[in-house]
C-alpha cells in the first residue's frame, strides 16, 4: 500500500537520514511512503502566535496536497500531527472557515475536501499495519533490552485529536513488545512534556523537564527511552547534552529501534549517531 508522507522539518535537511530509516522500515512492512514534496512546515504550533488562520491555511494546504494525490497522510511528529489534526478539526466543524480557506487555496489549484485520513506513526502502525506484521518483520529481536516507552503530549492531548487513550495509552508498549523488547512502562513520566518547545521561550523549563523525565527512567533502571516523536527524541538526545549534569540516558526515535530489530545495522538505523551512546 501507499501513503502520503509529510516530512515537516524533522525528516529532511539536517535530519534527512531519519527519513531514509523511516522509508526502509516501511518498505519491510509493505508500505510505500510517497513524499508530499510541496508541503511546508506546519508552523510548529508557533505560527498561531502570529495569526491562527495562517496555521489553518498552511495546514489545510498541506492536507490538500495529499488529497490531490488521492492519498491518506502519515505524519510522524507529535507536534506536526497535533497542529495538522487541529486544522482539520476546525475546518470540518466550521463550514465558513473551510470555504474561506478553499477560496485561498484555489489560487494554487488546490482544494481541501476533508477526504484524506491523517495518521500519526502510532495509530498507523496499530490500525493499518498491525502489531502482527511488525512481529513478523523482526529478525533481530530486542531481547533483554529494557525499553521505557515515552509518548509525549501532542498525540494524547487534547482528546479531540488523540490517537490513543489519553489516560492509559498502550500502542507504544505493544509496538515495543512486538520488537521483542522488555517494556518497562511503570514510571511517572510517560506523558510529561519533554520541554522541546520551550527551549526558545524559557530554556530553564526545558532543562527541568529533561531532568525529571530522564532521572525517572534511571529510577526504573531503563536501558533506553523510546519515543514516537522526533522532537522529543531531539530533546532527549541533543538538549540532554546541554544539561549541567546530564543523567546520560540513551534515547531512540521509534523507527530507529524498529529498523534495528528488522535487521538494519546500527549505522543504517541511525542509532550509531546519537550524542548519548545507545547500548544496543
Amino acid at each position, binding site marked *: 500500500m501507499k501513503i502520503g508522507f509529510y516530512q515537516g*522539518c524533522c525528516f*529532511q*535537511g*539536517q*535530519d*534527512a*537520514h531519519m*527519513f*531514509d530509516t523511516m*522509508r526502509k522500515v516501511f518498505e519491510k512492512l509493505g508500505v510505500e511512503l510517497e513524499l508530499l*514534496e*510541496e*508541503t*511546508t*512546515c506546519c*508552523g*510548529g*504550533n*508557533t*505560527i*498561531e*502566535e*502570529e*495569526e*491562527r*488562520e*495562517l496555521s489553518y*491555511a*498552511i495546514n489545510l*494546504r498541506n492536507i490538500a496536497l495529499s488529497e490531490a494525490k488521492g492519498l491518506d497522510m502519515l505524519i510522524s511528529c507529535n507536534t506536526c500531527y*497535533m497542529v495538522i489534526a487541529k486544522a482539520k478539526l476546525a475546518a470540518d466543524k466550521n463550514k465558513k472557515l473551510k470555504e474561506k480557506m478553499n477560496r*485561498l487555496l484555489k*489560487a*494554487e489549484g488546490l482544494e481541501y475536501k476533508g477526504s484524506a485520513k491523517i495518521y500519526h506513526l502510532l495509530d498507523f502502525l496499530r490500525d493499518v499495519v498491525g502489531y502482527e506484521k511488525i512481529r513478523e518483520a523482526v529478525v533481530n529481536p530486542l531481547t533483554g533490552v529494557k525499553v521505557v516507552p515515552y509518548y509525549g*503530549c*501532542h498525540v494524547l*492531548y*487534547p*482528546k479531540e485529536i488523540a490517537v490513543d487513550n*489519553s*489516560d*492509559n495509552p498502550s500502542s507504544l508498549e505493544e509496538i515495543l513488545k512486538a520488537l521483542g523488547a522488555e517494556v518497562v512502562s511503570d514510571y*511517572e513520566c510517560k506523558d*510529561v*512534556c519533554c*520541554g522541546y*518547545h*520551550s527551549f*526558545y*521561550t*524559557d*530554556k*530553564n*523549563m526545558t532543562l*527541568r*523537564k529533561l531532568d*525529571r523525565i530522564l532521572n525517572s527512567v534511571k529510577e526504573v533502571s531503563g536501558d533506553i527511552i523510546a519515543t514516537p516523536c522526533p522532537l522529543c527524541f531531539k530533546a532527549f538526545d541533543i538538549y540532554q547534552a546541554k544539561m549541567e549534569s546530564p543523567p546520560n540516558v540513551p534515547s531512540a526515535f521509534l523507527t530507529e529501534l524498529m529498523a534495528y530489530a528488522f535487521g538494519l545495522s546500527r549505522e543504517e538505523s541511525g542509532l550509531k*549517531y*546519537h*550524542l548519548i551512546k545507545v547500548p544496543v
Partner: protein
Amino acid sequence: METVTLKIFRYDPDKDNVPYYKDYEVPVEGTLLNALLYIKDNLDPTLSFRAFCRSEVCGSCAVRVNGKTKLACKTPMRELYEIWKGKPLKVEPLNHMKVIKDLVTDIDEPVEKMKTLMPWLVPDPSVVPSDPMHESIIYPEEMELYKDQIHCMLCFSCYSACEAVEDNERYRGPFAFSRAYRFQVDRRDIETAKDRRIRYAISGGLWSCVQCQKCLHVCPKGVKPAEDIQNLRRRSIRKGFTDKPGAKKLKHYVDWIYATGQINRLYLPAEVYGDSEAVEVLKSAYKSMGAEVWEVPKPVKGLLKFRDTYLEVLSKSEEKAMNIDFSHVREIDRLVSDFFKADVCTILDRALSKSYESKGLVDRLKSLLGGN
C-alpha cells in the same frame, strides 16, 4: 454487582503525620462523585471531599484518578473501570495545591495568582456610560471573542494538570491567563489597563507555558487556555514586547517559513539567543553524527504560489503579531542561491530522483555543480 477498588488519599493534618491511602470497594455505576458519596454514606463518614452542584456547574469536585485530573461529577465509573481494566483506582487531591484534608485542597494560592493578572474590567469612560442606569451594550460579535472563557468555573483542573506550574512556581496558571485574555479583548476595557495586564502576564510566566495542551484537554467547560496564551503572546508582541526570546522565535518562524516554506533550526540559536557560533557547532556536531547538514532548507516546490497564499492571509489579518521582515527574507533568499549556486529546486529534485539516500547528497551536488 460489579465493584472496583478506590485507593483514596487520606490526610488529616491534625491527626496524621503523613498521608496514607485507604481502600474502598464501590459499585461500578453512576459517576465518580456517586462513588465518593457512596463511601461517605455507607462505608466511612470521615472521608472529606468537596462537591455541591453534582452537575458540572460549581467546579468544586475535581480530583485526580491514577494521576489524571477528573471532574468527579462528570466522570462515569464505567469509563474509569474500562480505561484501567478493572484495576484499583488511586484517587488523590488536585496537584500543585495544599491539602486541607483528604481530597479537599486550598484554592487560595491559585486564586491569589490569578488576581495578579487583573482579571476584571477597568471601564473605559468613552465606551461605558457613567450613568449606571444606562445600558452598556455588548454586541454578539464581541461576545464571540470570549464566549468560551466566561464559562470557566474555577475548578482548577487545568492548574492541577499544568506542566508550567509543575516546574515554575511563579507561573500563574492556565485559567488565570484565559481570564486575563477575556478582559484583554473586551472593548469596554480601557487601553491603559490592557497595557498593564500584558506586563503582568509577562512577569507571570506568559512565555513559560510549554504548550502541552493538557489544560484544554482537561477543561470540563471547553475553555482553551493554551490557545488564549498564544493569543496573549501575540498581543504582547503587538504592544512592543519584541525582545523576549519567544518573540524572536516567532519572528524566525514568520520570516523563514515565508521565505523557504521551512524553519531553519541551524539559525534559530543565532536569531533567538544571538549565538552565532551555534551554526558552525551544529554543523560539525551533525557531521560527527554522520549526517550532512543542509545549511539552508530546500525551498519547497511551488514556493512562489505558497508565498502568495501566506501573504494573502497576513494582509487580511487585523491582529497579526508582526509584519514579515522583507529585508530578512531577501537575506535568506541570498543564502539559498549562494549556497546552491543554482536554481536549487531543479538540481535537488534531479539528485533525489536518482537516489533516495541523503547521506553525501550535498557533496555530490556540489561536485555536480563544480563548486567546493
